[in-house]
């Protein structure tokens, strides 16, 4: 009994920490609609800055708490700066594009932190006077955890007061509720966004700084916290502070008690919770329907054109060039890279199919890539299937999974839907990770090499052929009546419904198709690498796909192709060129984002059109 009570307190302490970070994210999202991947980086910076400041200030209460506050303020200022110099310039870009920019920030911060604070974990000082523990029901409980349990509700209270009782708070609440209103603010909008970023980042920094007496400060803090934070925000309902608080509480407590019953549950618990909540409540616990979100896409997407003749010839030439390239490039490595690129193109194109024409973002597209890869690899391993039938199984498995997961995901909209795809992807990942008997767990499945008849060159041609065929097929489908219906429900759900086009069916079918094509890419990947690991369907892979699509431009069919080539090409080059490739890659992404808010293909298209007009 005592143990259970203490476990509940443990849950509260975790919940409190989680809430601090999540509150910042939800405030930022509520007002700006930016999916801010960099929030975890701000949290990490909070911890590192607090470490540096506190260890330099004199010991004692003033030194510690002053240091924590200073760190939080500094992170707030960094956040405001990010908004001023980076995000402000790309508010008009297509939805989710800002995510690309924030991801660039994540990469840059990772290397900057490594350069500034070194690789070794840092152990911050404990809070003065709170080193010890108190006796509760005969058991010891750390004093600092008690303080933390108090800080969460205190911050929640202060924030609610701020939003209720100040003019600024009223503006924030109104903006969270009604997008149109933000537009009507004019000049004040800029000020509002910057200040919201300041506050949100400050909260992230505070969350990080307050971990100092609890946890080591290390370079993995950013990614360790970011997904969980998003889960809390989405489960609570985007933009809802009380929602975030409740969700943090729910997740904190479920964790604390979950490990008593099923210790390995920590791997997926948050995602299970999110999946259940979103299936039952499509807008999270406290989320409200957007007033102006209505059924109409905010920014009109450009018309999809039939490819001009020149583009068709160019595409054909590129394909032929890619096919004969190995003859002119030295060695097998060229084949490996070209194979990787071909796989990436198909993977990105499949995601684009639901993101572009379908209008649904997916944060978990790797699930289908990975399920394809595992499907092929398992067949090869357990049934000694030859390569071709194993490759055929890939889209089948992925398509089936897409049908199952998609059935739930496509009912939701916007970030909720994207996060549900993430939840399913993580559930699939955890199965691959944990079901050691079947999948080999994180040690993966080895020895999935192509049949003897397929040399590396043959395999490359096979990959190139399937990738090109898949990409062209996706393109053809986007141009088919089905594709038009798909875009119709994205453009204007009300109108679509009024001419016999139900959003659900079309989105669902599109989701299954996208999953199946991702599965093909995954199957090809398995045989190209010779092994499959849970990394085939983990979050970084989903993020990669997202980055490729956004980088290339979500509004053009050529976007994912260009994006995939640019991203894999850049990555491949930079990793070999410098140890600080994350810094450079992040920097390049930021430059590209600022220069081409429509994505690379969007920029080419604009240039082409302006040339046509001139």
């Amino acid at each position: 009994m005592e143990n259970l009570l203490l476990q509940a307190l443990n849950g509260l302490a975790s919940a409190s920490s989680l809430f601090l970070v999540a509150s910042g994210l939800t405030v930022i999202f509520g007002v700006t609609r930016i999916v801010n991947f960099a929030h975890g980086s701000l949290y990490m910076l909070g911890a590192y800055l607090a470490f540096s400041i506190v260890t330099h200030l004199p010991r004692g209460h003033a030194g510690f708490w002053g240091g924590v506050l200073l760190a939080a303020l500094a992170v707030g200022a960094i956040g405001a700066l990010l908004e001023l110099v980076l995000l402000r310039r790309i508010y008009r870009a297509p939805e989710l594009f800002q995510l690309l920019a924030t991801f660039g920030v994540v990469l840059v911060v990772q290397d900057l932190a490594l350069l500034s604070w070194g690789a070794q974990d840092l152990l911050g000082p404990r809070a003065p006077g709170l080193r010890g523990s108190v006796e509760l029901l005969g058991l010891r409980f750390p004093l600092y955890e008690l303080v933390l349990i108090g800080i969460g509700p205190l911050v929640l209270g202060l924030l609610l007061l701020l939003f209720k009782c100040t003019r600024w708070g009223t503006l924030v609440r109104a903006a969270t509720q009604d997008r149109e209103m933000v537009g009507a603010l004019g000049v004040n909008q800029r000020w509002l966004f910057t200040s919201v970023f300041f506050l949100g980042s400050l909260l992230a920094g505070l969350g990080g700084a307050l971990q100092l007496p609890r946890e080591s400060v290390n370079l993995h803090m950013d990614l360790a916290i970011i997904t969980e934070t998003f889960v809390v925000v989405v489960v609570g309902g985007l933009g809802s502070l009380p929602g975030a608080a409740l969700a943090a509480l729910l997740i904190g407590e479920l964790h604390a008690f979950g490990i008593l019953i099923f210790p390995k549950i920590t791997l997926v618990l948050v995602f299970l919770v999110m999946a259940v909540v979103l299936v039952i409540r499509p807008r999270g616990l406290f989320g409200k329907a957007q007033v102006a979100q209505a059924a109409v896409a905010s920014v009109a997407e450009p018309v999809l054109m039939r490819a001009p003749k020149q583009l068709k010839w160019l595409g054909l030439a590129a394909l032929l060039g890619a096919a004969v390239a190995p003859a002119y490039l030295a060695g097998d490595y060229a084949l490996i890279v070209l194979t990787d690129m071909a796989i990436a193109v198909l993977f990105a194109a499949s995601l684009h199919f639901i993101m572009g024409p379908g209008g649904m973002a997916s944060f978990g597209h790797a699930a289908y890539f990975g399920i394809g890869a595992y499907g092929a690899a398992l067949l090869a391993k357990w049934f000694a299937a030859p390569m071709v039938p194993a490759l055929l199984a890939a889209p089948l498995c992925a398509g089936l999974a897409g049908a199952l997961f998609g059935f739930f995901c496509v009912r939701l909209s916007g970030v909720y839907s994207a996060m549900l795809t993430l939840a399913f992807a993580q559930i699939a990942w955890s199965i691959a990770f944990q079901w050691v008997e079947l999948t080999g767990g994180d040690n993966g499945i080895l020895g999935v090499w192509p049949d003897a008849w397929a040399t590396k060159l043959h395999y490359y041609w096979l990959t190139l052929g399937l990738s090109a065929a898949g990409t062209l097929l996706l393109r053809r489908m986007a141009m088919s009546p089905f594709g038009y219906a798909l875009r119709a429900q994205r453009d204007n759900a009300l109108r679509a419904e009024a001419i016999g086009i139900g959003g659900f069916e079309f989105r669902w079918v599109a989701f299954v198709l996208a999953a199946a094509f991702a599965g093909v890419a995954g199957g090809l990947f398995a045989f190209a690498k010779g092994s499959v690991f849970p990394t085939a369907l983990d979050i970084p892979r989903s993020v990669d796909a997202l980055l490729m699509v956004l980088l290339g431009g979500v509004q053009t069919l050529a976007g994912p192709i260009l994006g995939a080539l640019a991203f894999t090409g850049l990555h491949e080059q930079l990793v070999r060129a410098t140890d600080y490739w994350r810094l450079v890659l992040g920097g390049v992404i930021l430059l590209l984002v600022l220069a081409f808010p429509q994505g690379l293909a969007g920029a080419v298209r604009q240039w082409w059109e302006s040339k046509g007009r001139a």
Partner: protein
Amino acid sequence: MVGIGFGRRSVLGGVAALAAPKVGRAQAEALKIGEINSYTAQPAFLQPYRQAWTLAVEQVNAAGGIHGRPLQTVHRDDAGKPEDAVRHAGELINSEKVVLLAGGFLSNVGLALGDFALQNKRLFVASEPLTDAIVWSKGNRYTFRLRASTYMQCAMLVEEAAKLPAKKWALVAPNYEYGQSAVRWFKELLKAAKPDVEFVAEQFPALGRIDAGATVQALAASSPEAIFNVTFGADLTNFVRQGATRGLFERRAVVSLLTGEPEYLDPLGDEAPEGWIVTGYPWDQINTPAHTLFRDAYRRRFNDYPRLGSVVGYDTVQAIAALLRKANTTETEKLVDAMKGLNFGSVFGDVSFRAQDHQSTMGAFVGKTVLRNGRGTMVDWRYADGAKYLPSDAVVQTLRPAG
């Protein structure tokens, strides 16, 4: 404009770079080693590793290289992704024309590289990955591993654990292959050594995301007499802090894998736990001639003390240098044959790669943690020779596929 210029140039640059090796190959006199590791994912361990690697290569070359040819290393970062490691392996072999592959920190990266080595018939010297599979269930002709494996280190600790009076054990390990196998071996070996032990609780926090307070509480609730810990890195730090504040470690024996390594002990500073039975590396107290030489050279070169990663990096190069000297060829099959039973002088003493399972006999230090001058270190330690903690040849044969 700047952006697309960069993008295009980099793609073209990529193509050019793919073609480049043709030109560079002719003058290559050096013996090239391809080294792949998770540098950006695990910098805390791998920075010291890389430094010592560099030092060792410099020393080999200063001493005239291998039969007159200098060693050269091409490093690649796999960022913790096996598939990237495999891609780099392809590049290193095909473009860089390396003689052999080495490296690996994460088990799955090591296994992927091992499988690549088998498929492409290239030698792979795995330096760090601890998984037993790499030499046993997934072992193959082309893969050798330097470091004492999970099994070996567990066996070393079980020897100590069996001496303790404790019967009720609780276990905590990160939830992935390494943690799971460590727990499995520990239970199996301890049960064999001491049939009356009981395991009263197991916790498997997600790697890098331990909910330390709840985990500690859950362990305490089972009132164990002793604890076996496998967490490391940030998880360990958080576990120790919460455990200490809550008195989890009081009047309880703790047996802990790897915790004596400076990589994991040093970040704990003056909060390092005392009296834990650990495997590790008391770098400041080992005064064998080989180690002293290594330590001094390392300090001179980097103005820092060596970590265990440094030893692993340094000894991997020593092993490779010894191999290349012995074989005096760059032909893989001959290298593999020479690798079987290869003897070389590691900083821990003489070590050989066993012919039967390709595992080196490099050992580890077993001792107790203690606080000295505000930092953790080891006392009562001894060097546990790896050779003594490996199963018999008959057992190994059943564990390993033929070949």
